[in-house]
């Protein structure tokens, strides 16, 4: 019998969006969703130079997140230079008739939290944004990736984007995660295994029983971090968990259209025997709570480990990178990671600021006190309202942490939320790059439960003893 060759989830979404393919193999893809944040000012300047208009304002949505202040109650003074960035986005979206979830809008939040929350993120879509963590939306089975300003301008002007087809790479994670572990630990484990540039040029698909068992929040965290292994995007096939998460969302299809969509989405999972250019297997039971010790997310180890000794690294370039990382991080080879003192904690960012993340941190913190200061920034205004209804804000405050507003905040520091030089921060964010959270700041990446454990201990700490007997 001659049938269609088996296809991957990625192949199916890709092929459905190819407008045309040039002789050289580059394809012009139709783009279904385009998100903009304050950083879009370069692209809008390119539009203004050309006197061009926006081709698909109906598929384009603006969100204020990168520069919004985390403290914006009455009496807070906002730096005019920061306010100007938010206002520039307001002017640009208004001029081109683009819906904006701006400062003060009850739908405002981090773009990668708001998309799914509003039902704009759907299986089978192509989604782009001038932000590398756009890979997040792949959790719904969308083909979603970050683009630069010139590409943002191109999508604005044409509703399309030229793309080289990436290779495919399936990561199977089977078995059950231990107690106290989460999608963040899976993601950091994968990055440490594959390398920060190990998946460059590939579209990832996450599969296996441990992935199926993840909640939508967990899947979003995992896909979010795809870019940290260099991948173009990361995808998870839609299933019942996905459908439940979409049902009733404001911008999601309703009624008969929803039923028609579900029928299409059920065709999306990779066919049996579909070919992947690369494939690896990971056993969930091998994964421990992970912290990063260096200045790239691949420099990560289980919390039970010791700071690595560069002298034992056989590859001289890697040894040199490790030495430079330890020098910046102020760590001594051989020291126990679980004894490294921290001076501050941060819970938030497009990686780990959703309701489940806040619940898991609160479960550790309830009835306990933080030894160091810290900030909790919910991923969206909606997440903030829900957390307050559940009383999570009270738990954070009683533990001694600050409960802020939603935005990118201390993940990228653009709004002025930064640490002091030399400070060591336990953070639920996505990048431990030098200076990312402020010049000279040392960042350790980990899960929300691990950050909560670090807050209580005043050091990097294993969250497992703290979650015993508690329900996240």
């Amino acid at each position, binding site marked *: 019998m001659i049938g269609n060759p088996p296809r991957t989830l990625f192949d199916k979404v890709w092929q459905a969006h190819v407008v045309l393919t040039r002789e050289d193999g580059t394809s012009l893809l139709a783009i279904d969703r385009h998100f903009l944040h304050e950083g879009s000012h370069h692209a809008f300047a390119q539009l203004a130079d050309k006197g061009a208009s926006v081709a698909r304002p109906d598929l384009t949505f603006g969100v204020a997140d990168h520069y919004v202040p985390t403290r914006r109650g009455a009496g807070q003074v906002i730096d005019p230079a920061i306010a100007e960035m938010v206002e520039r986005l307001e002017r640009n979206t208004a001029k081109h008739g683009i819906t904006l979830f701006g400062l003060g809008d009850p739908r405002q939040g981090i773009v990668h939290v708001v998309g799914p929350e509003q039902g*704009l993120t759907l299986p089978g879509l192509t989604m782009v944004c001038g932000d590398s963590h756009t890979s997040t939306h792949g959790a719904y089975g969308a083909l979603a990736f970050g683009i*630069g300003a010139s590409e943002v301008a191109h999508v604005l002007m044409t509703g399309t984007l030229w793309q080289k087809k990436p290779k495919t790479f399936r990561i199977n994670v089977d078995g059950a995660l231990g107690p106290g572990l989460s999608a963040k630990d899976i993601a950091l484990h994968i990055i440490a295994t594959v390398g920060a540039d190990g998946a460059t040029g590939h579209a990832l698909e996450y599969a296996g029983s441990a992935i199926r068992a993840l909640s939508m929040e967990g899947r979003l965290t995992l896909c979010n971090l795809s870019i940290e292994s260099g991948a173009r995007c990361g995808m998870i096939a839609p299933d019942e968990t996905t459908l439940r998460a979409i049902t009733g969302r404001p911008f999601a299809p309703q009624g008969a259209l*929803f039923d028609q969509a579900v029928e299409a989405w059920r065709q999306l999972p990779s066919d049996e025997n579909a070919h992947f250019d690369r494939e690896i297997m990971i056993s969930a039971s091998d994964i421990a709570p992970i912290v990063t010790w260096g200045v790239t997310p691949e420099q990560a180890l289980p919390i039970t480990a010791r700071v690595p000794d560069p002298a034992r690294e056989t590859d001289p370039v890697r040894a040199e990178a490790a030495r430079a990382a330890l020098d910046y991080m102020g760590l001594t080879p051989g020291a126990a990671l679980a004894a490294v003192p921290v001076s501050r904690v941060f819970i938030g960012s497009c990686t780990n600021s959703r309701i489940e993340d806040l619940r898991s941190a609160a479960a550790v913190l309830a009835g306990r006190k933080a030894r160091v200061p810290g900030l909790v920034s919910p991923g969206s205004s909606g997440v903030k309202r829900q957390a307050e209804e559940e009383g999570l804000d009270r738990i954070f405050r009683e533990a001694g942490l600050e409960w802020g507003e939603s935005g990118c905040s201390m993940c990228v520091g653009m709004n002025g939320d930064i640490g002091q*030089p030399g400070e060591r921060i336990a953070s639920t964010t996505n990048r431990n790059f030098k200076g*990312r959270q402020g*010049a000279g700041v040392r960042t350790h990446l980990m899960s929300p439960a691990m950050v909560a454990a670090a807050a209580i201990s005043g050091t990097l700490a294993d969250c497992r003893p703290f979650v015993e007997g508690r329900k996240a």
Partner: protein
Amino acid sequence: MKPFTRVTALACPLPIANIDTDQLIPARFMRRTRKEGYGPVLLHDLRFEADGSPKPDFPLNRPEHAGAGFIVARRNFGSGSSREAAVYALADYGIRAVIAPSFGDIFAQNAVNNGLLPVRLPEDAVENLILNLSAQPAPITVDLENTRVEAGGLTLPFVIDPVWRTKLLNGWDDLDLTLSHAAEIRAFMERDARARPWMAPSRTG
């Protein structure tokens, strides 16, 4: 966009791995417009002390590398964020090509979109180049037409995506090409709206 065919210039070795976009352009400088120029803030926190004075030992600050047109760095150059300002900083500083064993995906695409050539060479070739350039600063030639780097007596062939090569050689912008397909795009979108009516954001939103 300025075409890139064959360029001869000084190459500055930066023997550092994972020079990410946050180092190429720290976030606090990204509010500026392109017209203000990003060159002065390239690699700001590596190049300058906290008081703003240049760090004398940083390779780009050394007199023998003044006016460098190329950077030779270690693996995973430009990893991290999609900020095109990382490329603006290099281009505005006067860098025409970066040579490294691997590049951040979005960074490399942004580079090509701005006429900056990402040259991928094997790790040992890059290490050799770093060693030679550190011992004896000298101009090298990056020849995109013949896809090779000429450094001293060495000729190092490199592989580049043919689409990127054509684009850089001609200084082409994607937009004109796309607009020439306007009718096909319109037809695709009309067909798609009938096939996938559920794709449009619901009006209840």
